[in-house]
């Protein structure tokens, strides 16, 4: 029920049979009169959210914490400050420098990676929040050293890159598109990379490469 999250006070009053059976009152009762319970009440206005998340996460930082990330099918554990973005951890701590940081403000798509198969800008994502999810970067596109992804092959054939700095982000946005749409239209391709900036101006060749990688006529770009 929607009201449960948006209006916790009302939900407690009007929905006696909440799924967890836990209400604001019962929580406080269960928490007893110890300092922990009181301080939770005092500092957290959304205290009833414990219905969805039974454990309050511990405060993290500023000192480094262990972070466990699953990247390209491999699990990494690193000790980093919790304020670090996923992009920074990938680049500075996992040596996966294929992912580029270009604007560092989520405006250019250069740091796009796939998080549980969804394209996200990794400069706007804390690394600690990416734990437990499957992360895929440009280094994980090829199958081993020899077998490139067909999209990578198409980028080479159609020269969908110049300086190459936007290329990893472009590739990840396009890979996500092809994963959800087998034969995208030109318009769908433009939309899929609409958050990816390229200063060399390689967009038309990117469109052509995606058309080709999905078995379509690359010259559609010119029509």
């Amino acid at each position, binding site marked *: 029920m929607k009201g449960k999250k948006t209006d916790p006070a009302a939900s407690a009053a009007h929905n006696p049979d909440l799924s967890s059976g836990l209400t604001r009152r019962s929580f406080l009762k269960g928490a007893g009169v110890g300092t922990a319970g009181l301080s939770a009440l005092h500092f957290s206005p959304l205290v009833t959210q414990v219905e969805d998340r039974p454990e309050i996460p511990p405060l993290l930082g500023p000192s480094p914490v262990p972070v466990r990330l699953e990247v390209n099918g491999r699990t990494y554990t690193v000790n980093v400050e919790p304020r670090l973005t996923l992009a920074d951890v990938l680049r500075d701590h996992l040596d996966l420098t294929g992912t580029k940081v270009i604007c560092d403000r989520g405006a250019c798509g250069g740091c796009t990676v796939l998080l549980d198969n969804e394209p996200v800008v990794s400069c706007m994502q804390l690394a600690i929040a990416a734990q437990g999810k499957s992360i895929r970067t440009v280094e994980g596109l090829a199958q081993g050293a020899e077998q490139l992804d067909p999209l990578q092959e198409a980028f080479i054939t159609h020269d969908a890159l110049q300086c190459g700095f936007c290329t990893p982000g472009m590739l990840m946005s396009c890979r996500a598109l092809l994963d959800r749409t087998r034969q995208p239209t030109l318009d769908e391709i433009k939309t899929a990379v609409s958050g990816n*900036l390229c200063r060399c101006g390689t967009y038309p060749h990117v469109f052509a490469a995606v058309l080709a990688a999905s078995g379509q006529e690359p010259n559609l770009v010119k029509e």
Partner: protein
Amino acid sequence: MARKVTLRVGYQNNLSSETRTIPDDEPLPWDATTELRVVGKPVPRVDARAKVTGQAKYTHDVKLPGMLYGVIVRSPYAAAGIQSIDIAAAEDLPGVRAVYVLDRRRVRFQGHEVAAIAADTPEQAEDAARAIEVAYAPGPFVVDFEMAMRADAPVVMEGGRAAAGGRVRVQGGIRLVAAAWADDGPKQNSNVFGPAKRSLFGSNRGDVPHAVQIADEVIEQEFRTPVQTHSCLETHAAVAYWEAGRLIVHCGAKSVTKARAELADYFGLSHTQVHVVNTFIGGHFGTKSSSLPYAALAARLAKQTGRPVKIALSRKDEHLVGGNRPQNRMQVRVAGMRDGTLAAVELTNYGSAGAGFGAGASGPFFSIYDCVHVRAADYDVLMNTGPSCAFRAPGHPQGAFALEVAIDMLCARLGYDPVEFRLRNSCERTPWRAEELRIGAERMGWHDRRDPMPAAQDGPIKRGIGVANSVWYSVYSPGAQVEVQVNKDGSVIALTSTSAPGAGSRTVIAQAIAEELGLEPHQIDVRLSDSDYPYSPAPGGSRLTSTVTPPARQAAYRVKQRLLSYAARKLEVGPDTLSLQPGGMVVSQSGKRLTWAETCGLLPGGKTVALGERAEDYSGPSVSFSRISMGQDLIAGVQFAEVTVDERIGQVRVDKIVAVQDCGRVFNPLLAESQLQGGIINALSFGLFEERVMDGLEGRMLNPDFLFYKIAGPREMPQLDTVFLNVYHGQTNTDARNLGEPAKVATIAAVVNAIYNATGAWVTQLPITPGRVLAALAERDRALEANVRASKARARA
């Protein structure tokens, strides 16, 4: 020793024979009739695989053991004295290893460097940078172009050019542009300098006032363009460390040899003590010409700490100090005769390169038209903003916008077709431009689809078609060298010091060598961007392909001659009877053969090496500077634009661009198409969206990011139809010219002329925002009403 050769030169069916004198050890130049196997073919770039797998290492990606992260502390003020700098608090923060304070008492623009710090992590370095306490005494400043020209404006640099020259060490680029000024001049107490005593691109000719006086029609119009920042996706960056008294720098500067000279000069070292390298560069577009001050600061901090230090500029800092295209206010006069002759063109340009020089825009005025009466004057106006530096066709997108729109205004006044007018007036020095205009007009449907009457369609949604000319120069650097090494196992390495920021320098070098040796381009391991390699210049001025492919081919030819002599001894035939076939097979006239591997196996040592060197063009340069020459011929190029304008909201959509471009021999049509499309897109971005916005009260840039500094994205892409015209000049052994800059010159003028064709309104200020379009439409309506009133008055009379 020299010999004479006859070469077929020209374009399409307009070929003729010309005799050239070439050195004895020069391979027979490829001309218009040479059949080539890999040159001129759409060869995928040889370094593409590294780029699509994320393996390509840019300076941003360099990480060395024990490396520290540096941050530069920059002035938030446009002008201020520095009273004191307290670094104690910063030094006490965790992870901080070194602080370096620049010897600077004044800052002249937001972003001017003040101090630098190094810490264990980038985050700690940023924290520490914020903790450095600088006591500024903010002073008067000016960041507004019009205000900067006023007599009572705060003076940006007392002493003018002398002050600018003194700043070479800390703000690279200024020295280069300041050199265009003939002398130091008196102490300057205003911000206006000029007119420039000479231009790289031409000089005044004829008698403009007289020509204007006797002309049938004269157009006078002012045009304005904004500051465009380079916005390279990889910001300026360097990683520096010291090893046994030597300085080693991974640096994103596009000329490692220039960076080496700068850093050696800065630290008082010999060139042998400085080693500068990089592998990939994330775009340059004219900037990244200097390693100063960022690489020097990284080296300072590295010296203090004894550890490698990396400095990579933030996006904000890149906007502030990473270079920009000057803003311009251009007063243009063009005069014409009723028979369609262009009688005179004149430009008075005031431009601002911020706290620097080089805001000229006169190139197109000297070079596009054959017109006999030309006068241009470029003035520099200093402001308290980050200095400009060369940006893809310096001055030309602005100048061509002003000139080519003024030409269409003249055509409208004369009732002359803009394509016909250009055929008549701009095809003498560049006769192939006529063919380009013909091809472009046909592909755009100029005669079938364009209504010569502006605003011919009913309703608020209007479509129009426009045209504009481009121009560029046959720029090259004599003295550039390429080394080719053939190893005993048959592998081939090419070495030269130029860099690879994205246009395809590795690929064209590989093509030239592969063609000569009968190999495939991917078999040539081209290694660039190392200051220990033979010298070749940075890409820039559109000179790379014409500069490095002739010595690459020459070196390969010399290696080939040596290999053939070993093969001849082995096969017991004369070397002259041998040829090197595709696949590297050596075949004698008598049918004896050796494979490439067998031939290379004959090398007595492990390898053989030859050096090629770029000489002057066979016919000599038209102009020569210290390291740059310009060949006799120009590069032409035309572009056509089709636009849709929504008159209700002033929105312009560019539907299609047709570009017809020459660049000598097209070395690689696949990469050339990328280059041409990229130039067009950058020009559209410049003309439609980009503008640095300064806050006049605070002296700061309001949009130093990619959210509010808008650059063209995928959704704004028009249909692009690019056509190349091979034009053979017979000037080098490869006959390649260049492409990067000519691609960007004509686009926005063609768009503006198309907007006129659609609406009857002239847009004279960039970027073409809806507000400016609505203002132009209102201006059109006022003019129409005035005309109606005037004709009614005449009728009554």
